[in-house]
C-alpha cells in the first residue's frame, strides 16, 4: 500500500458554516461531517474527544447533537482513548450507528475490532462512520504540560488554542500572548508507542483529514471507502463544504506525501532496530516484541 493508503479522491476543503469555522482547528471537516451524519441519520451518535475537568485534557465522549459536537471541536495534542467507549456507545447509549474519530492507530484499532471482534460483542456492524485525523506522533498529558508550562511558559488554563505547524508548537493565550517551541524539542516527549506506528494519514478510515497540504484554515481530505464516498458526496450536495482542487493548492499533496514518507521510513527503521535490540548468549541479536509479526 502506498504511504497515503487507498483513496478515491483527495480534496482541499473547509466548512461553509461560519460557527464551525470559528471553533474548528483547521477546516472543520470532522465536526461538519459528524453534524451532517447526525442530521441525516447516518449515525445516531459519535465518539469524540470531549472536554474534561482538567484544562486541555480530553475525555472520550459520546455526542448526539450538533451543540455537543461544537463543544468538542478543535485539537488537543494529547491522547483521548476514544476506543474505550466503542462497546459502551452501543450499550449504555443504545446507539445502532456509531461514528468515531481517531488517530491512525485508533482507526487501526477500530478495524481490528470489526475484523477480529474478540471482546467486542455486537459492535462490528454498528460502526457506521470512521473519521481519521493525520498524526505524526502523540504526547501524554504530562508531556503536553511540560511543553506548555516549561517550554512555552504559559499556564494550561490560560491557553486558548494550540497548534502545530511550520516547524513550531504554538500556544495562543486568552489574553493574546503567543508562545512557541521549536518542534525539534518535542522528540523526548513523544510517547514511545508512537515510534512503531506505520500510518500517517489514517489509511483505514472512511474519510481522513488534516491541515497538512492545504492553506491556513483549510484541510486536506482523503475520501477512502465506499461508505466514506457516499457520506462525502451527500455533504457536498448539501453545500456544507467549500472546496478547492488539490492540484491548485499550496503546499499541496507533495507535502503530505513527504511527511508520510518521512514518518513511515523513520518508524519502519525503529521497528527493524527492535529486531536486533539485545544480545543472545550465542552472540546473535535478541529481539523485542514485534506486533506486525506475531502476538
Amino acid at each position, binding site marked *: 500500500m502506498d504511504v497515503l493508503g487507498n483513496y478515491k479522491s483527495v480534496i482541499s476543503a473547509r466548512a461553509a458554516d461560519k460557527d464551525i469555522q470559528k471553533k474548528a482547528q483547521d477546516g472543520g471537516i470532522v465536526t461538519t461531517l459528524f453534524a451532517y451524519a447526525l442530521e441525516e441519520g447516518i449515525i445516531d451518535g459519535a465518539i469524540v474527544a470531549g472536554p474534561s475537568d482538567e484544562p486541555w485534557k480530553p475525555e472520550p465522549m459520546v455526542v448526539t447533537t450538533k451543540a455537543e459536537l461544537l463543544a468538542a471541536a478543535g485539537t488537543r495534542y494529547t491522547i483521548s482513548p476514544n476506543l*474505550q467507549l466503542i462497546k459502551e456507545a452501543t450499550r449504555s447509549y443504545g446507539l445502532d450507528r456509531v461514528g468515531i474519530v481517531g488517530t491512525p492507530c485508533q482507526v487501526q484499532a477500530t478495524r*481490528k475490532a470489526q*475484523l477480529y471482534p*474478540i*471482546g467486542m*460483542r455486537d459492535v462490528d456492524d454498528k460502526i457506521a462512520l470512521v473519521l481519521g485525523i493525520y498524526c505524526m506522533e502523540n504526547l501524554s498529558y504530562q508531556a503536553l504540560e511540560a511543553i506548555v508550562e516549561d517550554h512555552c511558559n504559559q499556564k494550561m488554563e490560560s491557553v486558548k488554542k494550540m497548534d502545530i505547524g511550520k516547524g513550531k508548537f504554538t500556544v495562543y493565550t486568552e489574553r493574546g500572548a503567543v508562545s512557541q517551541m521549536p518542534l525539534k524539542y518535542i522528540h523526548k516527549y513523544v510517547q514511545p508507542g508512537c515510534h512503531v506506528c506505520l500510518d500517517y494519514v489514517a489509511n*483505514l478510515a472512511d474519510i481522513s483529514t488534516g491541515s497538512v497540504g492545504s492553506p491556513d484554515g483549510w484541510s486536506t481530505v482523503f475520501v477512502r471507502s465506499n461508505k466514506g464516498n457516499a457520506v462525502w458526496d451527500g455533504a457536498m450536495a448539501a453545500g456544507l463544504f467549500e472546496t478547492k482542487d488539490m492540484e491548485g493548492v499550496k503546499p499541496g499533496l507533495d507535502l503530505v506525501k513527504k511527511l508520510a514518507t518521512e514518518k513511515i521510513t523513520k518508524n519502519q527503521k525503529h521497528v527493524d532496530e527492535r529486531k536486533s535490540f539485545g544480545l543472545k548468549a550465542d552472540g546473535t541479536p535478541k529481539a523485542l516484541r514485534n506486533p506486525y509479526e506475531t502476538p
Partner: protein
Amino acid sequence: MELKEEKPVADKITIGELHLSGCTGCLVTLADNYEGLFKLLDDYADLVYALTLVDVRHVPEMDVCLVEGSCCLNDEISVEELKEARAKSAVLVAYGACAAYGNITRFCRGGQWNQPGQEAFVPISEVVDVDLYLPSCPPCPQAIRNIAVMAYLLLKGNDEQKALATAYLTPLMQLAQRGNEACGCDLMYDVINQGLCMGCGTCAGTCPVRAITMEYGKPNVNRDLCIKCGACYSQCPRSWFNFDVMNNYEGIIDAINGAMK
C-alpha cells in the same frame, strides 16, 4: 415415516462443540448469531456434536472441534473426551477464555458442592495440542461467525479464498502458540513494558468485567477484578496487527456479509 434433513449444500464442513468445565456461555454465543446460525448450518457447516443442540452421545469425527471450558484433571471423562476430540478433529479450537486460558476456573480451589474433590482445572493446551485460540468471556458471536466462514473457505474454497482464510486465521493460531496464561497484566508486560502502547483505549473498551480504566492515556488494570480471559490483549492493536488482512478490511467485511446473506 422417517424425517430426513434436506442438505442443499453437499460440501459443508463438520463442526462440533465439546463442553468441558465452562458455563455454556460459549455455546449460547454460537446460538447468539440467531438467523446467522441457520445460515451457517444451511450453507457452510454441519453441527455434528454439541450439548443439547445435537443428539449425539459420543465424540464423532469432525473437521473443526470447538472446545468450551477448561479441563478438570480430576475428572477422568473430561480428560478422555478431550483427548478423543483431539484425535478425531482436524482443527481443534480453544473456544472461549476457559479453554484457552483457564479464565475464571483459574481461581478454583476445590471444595465445591457436589464434587469437592474437583479442584485442578487447566487450559486445554495443558492436555492436548490446540490449533487456534478464540479468547474472551464470552467470545463474540461475530468472531465465531467469522472464524466459521474462514474455516469453510480454508477447507473448501478456491486458492484465493484459501490464502485469505490462512492470512485471517494465522494470528489466532499464533495466539495458541503464545501460551495459556492471560491476564490484564499482559497489557503491562507485552504492550506498555515493550514500548508499544499508544493509549487508544481498546483494552478498556473490550474488557467484559470493566477491570480496565484509562488513566492519563494508559490502561490501569484492577487486578482483583480481572478474570484472566485474554480479551484485552488479543483485541489490542499492538498485540498483533496484520496489514495484509487489515488493509483489505472493506473487501473482507463485504465478503463475510455476502456469505451470510
